[in-house]
């Protein structure tokens, strides 16, 4: 370890370090953030959910979007995997189906950043497994 010689050094160091902690900081105040949940059940993973998730996380970091990406279980739309759910504060959650990395970028550009819906939205009158007892 090397000595921190000035306040500027300390601030720079904090900047470098905070990325790693971002996920914890954000999860501490989830209600004020855009929550993106990627269905990561077997079917989802098989359909490429992990890649989608990575794309989303990278985009969020890059564009400094106040969002948090979490994993979810199967939403019951196995025919449309990978699926993701996006909840913008103050709005109803929206579920997108057949999301690949291209669609994921599209979701970010259009829906998250501009509030425009895109194709592939699945109606939201569902109940996830997680909400059952």
């Amino acid at each position, binding site marked *: *370890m*090397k*000595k*921190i*010689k*000035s*306040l500027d*050094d*300390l*601030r720079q*160091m*904090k900047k*470098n*370090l*905070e*990325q*790693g*902690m*971002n*996920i*914890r*900081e*954000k*999860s*501490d105040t*989830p*209600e004020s953030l855009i929550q993106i949940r*990627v*269905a*990561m*059940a*077997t079917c*989802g*993973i098989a359909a490429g959910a992990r890649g989608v*998730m*990575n794309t989303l*996380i990278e985009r969020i*970091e890059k564009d400094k979007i106040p969002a*948090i*990406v*979490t*994993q*979810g*279980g*199967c939403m019951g739309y196995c025919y449309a995997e990978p699926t993701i759910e996006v909840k913008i504060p103050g709005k109803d959650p929206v579920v997108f189906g057949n999301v690949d990395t291209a669609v994921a970028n599209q979701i970010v550009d259009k829906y998250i950043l501009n509030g425009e819906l895109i194709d592939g939205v699945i109606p939201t009158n569902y109940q996830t497994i*997680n909400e059952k*007892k």
Partner: protein
Amino acid sequence: MAQYKMHLLVCGGTGCRASQSDVIVKNLESSIKELGLSEEAQVVTTGCFGFCEKGPIVKVIPDNTFYTQVKPEDCEEIVREHVLKGRRVYRLLYEDPETQKHIEDSKHMGFYQKQLRIALRNCGFIDPENIDEYIARDGYAAIGNILAEMSPEQAIDIMKKSGLRGRGGGGFPTGIKWEIASKNKADQKYVVCNADEGDPGAFMDRSILEGDPHSVLEAMAICGYCIGASKGLIYIRAEYPLAIKRLQVAISQAREYGLLGDNILGTPFSFDVELKYGAGAFVCGEETALIHSMEGHRGEPTVKPPFPAEKGYLGKPTNVNNVETLANIPVIYLKGAEWFASIGTEKSKGTKVFALAGKINNVGLIEVPMGITLREVIYEIGGGIKGGKKFKAVQTGGPSGGCLTEKHLDTPIDFDNLLAAGSMMGSGGMIVMDEDDCMVSVAKFYLEFTVEESCGKCAPCRVGNKRLHEILEKICAGKGTEDDLEYLKNLSYVIKDTSLCGLGQTSPNPVLSTLEHFYDEYLAHVRERICIAGRCKALKLYTILPDKCTGCTACTRACPVGAITGEKRQPHVIDVDKCIRCGACYDKCKFTAIHVQ
């Protein structure tokens, strides 16, 4: 710092460690490696989450899934299901005691909803053994800013404006304490952190030191700058090995970064911290006793004045602050005095950490804004009384405090209200009692503690508390008189009035407050010889229910003192005066005809 998509925070506090949380960390890590998830998930050992009732705790970030009572063998499942497949392991989730529903994430747990964590902000959040995580959360930014932008006077002014009061028991305004110490001129001054936490059941200081040691170190450095001290000492009880270890790690990391030592952050300010070990005597929480103990003398208090701010450690001006007080300080400088002063009540600002214990569902460590009511703490955060019993009293302030009752449930908690109600904030112990608790026995329990912990220097505390305890024992043994109650009161007042230090000046509080709020219970003990709660064995009243008694004579034969008489096949009678309350008849009776009151 590497970026992971998922963090698994495992409580590394003393409580959870005792239930093998260190093995849990190992198992989680190996499972993650096995499933090839090392790039995605990180396991972090953190400080205490406070929810000790259900430890060990594993919290999964980012979705805040809160696993309770995790066993080492559960780890593989957590990783396989949750990390890999995004499915929560339901059986490990916290179950709401009222609705019996599993609660998915900590944000929806009653225990956390009403809490506001300032002193505990980093506990259960960062890895206390990794200074980088502390820095990432603006650690050492407060001291950095102060050194760059403020004079000691300005920094003290902020502390005064924040309204922070000492969390160790006395509630003395921290800013004023600093100001006094800063004005006394000396070639050497000292900053002392009082980590001699001694109230039975209280463990907030330990948790802070285990979960966020750097906050305390940073605050000490800030204090050092303000009062003009270059040396800091942490007086910590040797019974806190984990806290000691974490502090040692933290001190050496801070030294390596130059955040402790000479010329901190390139400024002329130098400050270093050393640990001093105590043997865990309660009285050493009193600052003069603490200083004597640090000097290698017998841990006993001396008459104040002189206060430590004039003549403290080695005769030099010394500022003593408690751990929780210090933990509040860096964030006050980061967010501003106004922010802190906006929390709490008029005269008690900020939050207070309480150790919830006793007959309550959610035992643990909580931090709440001043001004919250006891009702909110007990019923919303604490989840109500265990087993659906009736609430009777809550004891706050440890052995120096008193008991509060039903009528105080809606009183906003702050320093002054608790004092007015005949108790005190103390260091934040909160023990809940239900209908099964005998208040005389409760007072006796606390006196037992003070008798044990009195240093023996002054006569009223040394002998007086012993006598108080003896009288309470006498009452619990069914031998008390109404005169005893009078003497109990007089003795309590004299001990309070004449004792040398805070220990003796407050030790009769449990007696006085129970005498005030539960006088009927005392009277029942001495007049009717009845313990309403049924706790005092000697006061159990045994009678025979005539309609149930078959006159089998089994009880007559069992009674060792011949207190039971009666004709064969006729209902028997117990002679109350002869009865020694041994319960032998109760055990022998096959017809549940013996009634115990």
